[in-house]
């Protein structure tokens, strides 16, 4: 066991750069690829568990009141039905990411339309589904509750309030200013794999095969929900069919499966129907954002105001952190920020890919585009002029920030200089426009553990409960271990997604790769030390490559050195002083070309490019794919995504994939991505920052700004669907 490594000082040694195997950063294929392309990777609801039966959950048909199940006995007698379970421990809504304890529980009172209030268990899935559909649920003593933020009580988040200088005066004195209100709707993560759990008990020990992102927290959330000790809970989640925040915290199906399995004495599988994913997992809050930007005659910001309103269920503390990047992205001495939380009876609001920046930076970048237009400046130039020398609020240095290079290089690659004037370019029925936006996302390191075992045959095994939700964890952890231990990629086995293994950071907030990668790095560093000791050389003089050690002008195989023994070390990283000593964030820039149909207002993205800087890139292929995914979320946000709530009862109207539109292949052109070389010594022992969310943080604005360039129309109410454009088209 090694001591935890606390990130109190910048990791200037950059040891990974000294390694000889050449894996880290290389665009290597995912080792999990062959399983995924053959359908043999096992997702949550695919385990063949002996004796397993099926549970299907049932929704509340209203937004308040006491839940009454009026024909339980009748349903219980239906063919194959084993039990109708409604248990106090069932969840009202999912846990927030990192909650580490049970969320609000209780299926007897509805707080929002679609809340999952019971589970019907039967021998077969078909029987359970029909029985669940036959269960009559009514609500007694329903009240009139607020379902829209406009009509709801609002709580100011005082810890999120900032008043620096005098923004009102700056606005008065500004040569150029904008004062605009934008709104963004709720979004759904919509991972392709619906949430699912299989619970099986052996005595008082529970095994849950689930689809979760942060297992060490999920285990505690599940144990707390059930009122049992976490040691009695094991969660397995080796493959996760997408998460995007919706699987950060424990969701209702997990507890339902656990209590149902106990009730019927058999393993129970509960998979949410797609409709239930939309109605009862997590949504991104809708936002109302007022941006006030004040600039001098040269376009230098003298004032920056960002005031937002978001919403959530009563009892939930999460408030979409819309202002997160506004604190550090641009200059401006006079600053005013505030965040209000409206209490609405809609499904729980929580993390959806890049909470805060996804919608916050996007709207800031729209306002910056409006300012550029007002000031007659090239939007890229406006941004370049407003890169603050140090954090504009704290005065801290940035840990690393290749923001300027991203703007300049991205513009060059895209061909930004060819940008048409507003409403200037037309090809047939299509109005053509260019738009750009900056990208920014806070960077975070999280406590993470991993065990690395150098086996006696000169191969290695990496073990952690870290997850791979498509992010490339299997690839990058193997690359880091391979480089540090001098092993070919294929000689490193990576085992993930099991709470019996050392606790990783989990996949969320973009911290997974740098945090769990650092844990693996530290474990490997300890193994290197031990090898060096055994060989009586300084670790720095030990060259490991291709399962051989070269030292003192000698070369020996690792197998020979190990002499039948293995070396196992635990790597354990914790955030430390570097988190607060400097401002840590990732940066980038997007460029988009759109066509807007002059007749119908349909917008199609024709080209889109992103340049990003996020510290050390651990795998250029998987990092690029993360950026492609983020940018596509941006396309969705800009053009089509909206959870539509019925304003009368707050139910999700478009609760399926046919009507909650996410981009299809034809909506996405062949996007291009550039990743800038960077090392961030302050961020993590491996000099990496997060990249999983950077691709969405502002992406939508590049598209809506391009719509303005094409049409002269500002759509300030996302998404920019055709109905918001046609009235102003020629």
């Amino acid at each position, binding site marked *: 066991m090694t001591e935890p490594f606390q990130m109190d000082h910048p990791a200037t040694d950059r040891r990974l750069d000294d390694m000889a195997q050449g894996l880290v950063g290389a665009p290597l294929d995912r080792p999990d690829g062959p399983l995924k392309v053959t359908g043999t990777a096992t997702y949550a609801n695919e385990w063949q568990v002996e004796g397993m039966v099926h549970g299907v959950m049932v929704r509340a048909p209203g937004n308040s009141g006491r839940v009454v199940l009026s024909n339980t006995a009748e349903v219980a007698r239906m063919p194959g039905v084993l039990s109708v379970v409604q248990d106090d421990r069932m969840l009202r809504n999912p846990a927030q990411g990192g909650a580490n304890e049970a969320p609000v529980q209780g299926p007897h009172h509805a707080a929002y339309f679609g809340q999952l209030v019971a589970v019907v268990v039967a021998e077969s899935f078909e029987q359970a589904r029909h029985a669940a*559909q036959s269960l009559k649920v009514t609500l007694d003593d329903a009240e009139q509750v607020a379902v829209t933020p406009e009509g709801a009580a609002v709580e100011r988040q005082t810890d999120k309030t900032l008043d620096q200088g005098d923004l009102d005066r700056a606005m008065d004195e500004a040569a150029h200013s904008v004062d605009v209100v934008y709104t963004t709707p709720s979004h759904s993560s919509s991972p392709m794999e619906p949430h699912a759990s299989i619970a099986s008990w052996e005595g008082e020990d529970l095994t849950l095969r689930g689809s979760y992102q942060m297992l060490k927290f999920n285990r505690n959330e599940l144990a707390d929900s059930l009122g049992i000790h976490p040691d009695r809970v094991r969660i397995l989640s080796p493959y996760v069919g997408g998460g995007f925040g919706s699987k950060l915290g424990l969701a209702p199906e997990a507890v339902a499966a656990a209590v149902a399995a106990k009730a019927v004495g058999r393993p129970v599988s509960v998979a949410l129907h797609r409709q239930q994913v939309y109605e009862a997992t997590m949504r991104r809050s809708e936002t109302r954002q007022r941006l006030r930007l004040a600039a001098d005659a040269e376009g230098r910001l003298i004032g920056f105001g960002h005031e937002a309103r978001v919403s959530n269920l009563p009892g939930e503390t999460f408030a979409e952190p819309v202002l997160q990047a506004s604190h550090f992205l641009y200059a401006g001495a006079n600053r005013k920020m505030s965040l209000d939380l409206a209490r609405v009876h809609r499904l729980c609001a929580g993390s959806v890919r890049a909470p805060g920046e996804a919608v916050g930076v996007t709207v800031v970048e729209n306002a910056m585009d409006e300012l550029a237009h007002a000031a007659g400046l090239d939007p890229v130039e406006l941004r370049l002029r407003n890169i603050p020398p140090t954090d504009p609020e704290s005065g801290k240095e940035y840990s690393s920030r290749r923001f300027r290079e991203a703007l300049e290089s991205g513009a060059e690659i895209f061909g930004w200089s060819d940008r048409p004037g507003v409403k200037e370019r037309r090809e047939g029925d299509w109005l053509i426009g260019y738009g750009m936006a900056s990208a920014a996302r806070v960077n975070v390191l999280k406590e993470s553990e991993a065990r690395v075992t150098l086996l006696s045959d000169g191969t290695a095994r990496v073990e952690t409960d870290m997850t791979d939700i498509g992010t490339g964890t299997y690839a990058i952890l193997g690359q880091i271990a391979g480089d540090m231990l001098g092993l070919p990629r294929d000689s490193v086995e990576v085992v993930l997604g099991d709470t019996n293994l050392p606790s990783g950071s989990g996949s969320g907030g973009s911290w997974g790769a740098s945090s769990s990668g650092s844990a693996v790095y530290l474990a490997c560093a300890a193994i290197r030390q031990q090898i060096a000791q055994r060989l009586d050389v300084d670790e720095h003089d030990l060259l490991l490559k291709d399962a051989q050690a070269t030292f003192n002008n000698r070369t020996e195989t690792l197998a020979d050195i190990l002499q039948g023994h293995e070396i196992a070390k635990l790597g354990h990283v914790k955030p430390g002083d570097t988190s607060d000593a400097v401002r840590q964030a990732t940066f980038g820039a997007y460029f988009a070309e759109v066509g807007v149909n002059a007749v119908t207002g349909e917008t199609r993205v024709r080209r889109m490019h992103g340049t990003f800087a996020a510290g050390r890139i651990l795998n250029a292929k998987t990092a690029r794919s993360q950026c492609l995914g983020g940018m596509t979320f941006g396309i969705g946000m800009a053009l089509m995504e909206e959870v539509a709530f019925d304003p009368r009862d707050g139910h999700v109207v478009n609760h399926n994939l046919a009507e909650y539109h996410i981009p299809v292949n034809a909506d996405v052109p062949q996007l291009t991505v550039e990743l800038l070389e960077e090392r961030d010594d302050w961020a993590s022992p491996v000099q990496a920052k997060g990249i999983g969310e950077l691709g969405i943080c502002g992406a939508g604005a590049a598209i809506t700004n391009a719509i303005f360039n094409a049409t002269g129309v500002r759509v300030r109410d996302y998404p920019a669907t055709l109905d918001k454009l046609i009235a102003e*088209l020629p």
Partner: protein
Amino acid sequence: MKPFDYIRADSPDQASDHAAQGGVFIAGGTNLLDLMKLEVMTPDALIDINRLDLNQIDETDDGGLRIGALVSNSDLANDTRVRRHWPVLSRALLAGASGQLRNKATTGGNLLQRTRCLYFYDRAMACNKREPGSGCAARDGFNRSLAVLGTSEHCIATHPSDMAVAMRALGAEVETLTREGETRRLTLDQLYRLPGDRPDIETVLAPGELITAVVLPAPVEGRQTYRKVRDRASYAFALVSVAGIVEMQDGRIARADLAFGGLAPKPWRDADVEAALQGEAPSDALFKKAADVLLRDAQGFGENDFKLPLARRTLVSVLEELTEARR
């Protein structure tokens, strides 16, 4: 999904008999099974008609086509005769759904698909189509995709088909076999009912009556197009669509056959629109007049108000294209 009997029909007569006793025909099943899983539809029996010999496309004596009811949307779209002589039909089919769904969905089933109104799909919502007399939650709800023409106070659902819109413009007729063993022909206008006070009754087909074919008249002169407007580039239902066939003679519109999707409870065709165009020289004013005629009784319900200007603009654009009067 409610348990049901599965009956594989060997002959049309047998199929009709079973259906008359409360069974429901299943061909492609792409909409029926969708609705059954949600228990929006709960038939006691499914009568599988896929083994019936209804999957041929034959030329008729007058130069048209007789399309078997079981011909898949893919096969119909890809038929070389359809691509050459009735391209608007190919285009409409290819604009609909996905490659997978087109392979399974059939000609007859496509005509009979149910609305995509989200309130119809949700059993917790009032819907006169699903549960007569329960009310229409869509009217004052989120009705962005719903109808502006042909609605009633009881229902504002749209018919979601693209294919049927093209067929309506082409003057196709449905051939059916009644339970009594008689063959009858219905135009699409005759086939579909408007919702009125019984939105649950969508067609004039009698219990057990089986669509056996769709008959296309002989090809007509002129240009054809299908324009579909939607929220994403593919795999989305039409907000508005226009199927148009226009024949020009001596600089005037000799004939304009126009049908519309996304606007009404059935594929919409309005003889007055066509009459307004016939014999006239193309002009922007004329096209706008035609749009005025089309929308003279149109009514939006809030979220879907945009369909009026959208339909107007799309129609004008389609007419410009088909009369070669483009700017």
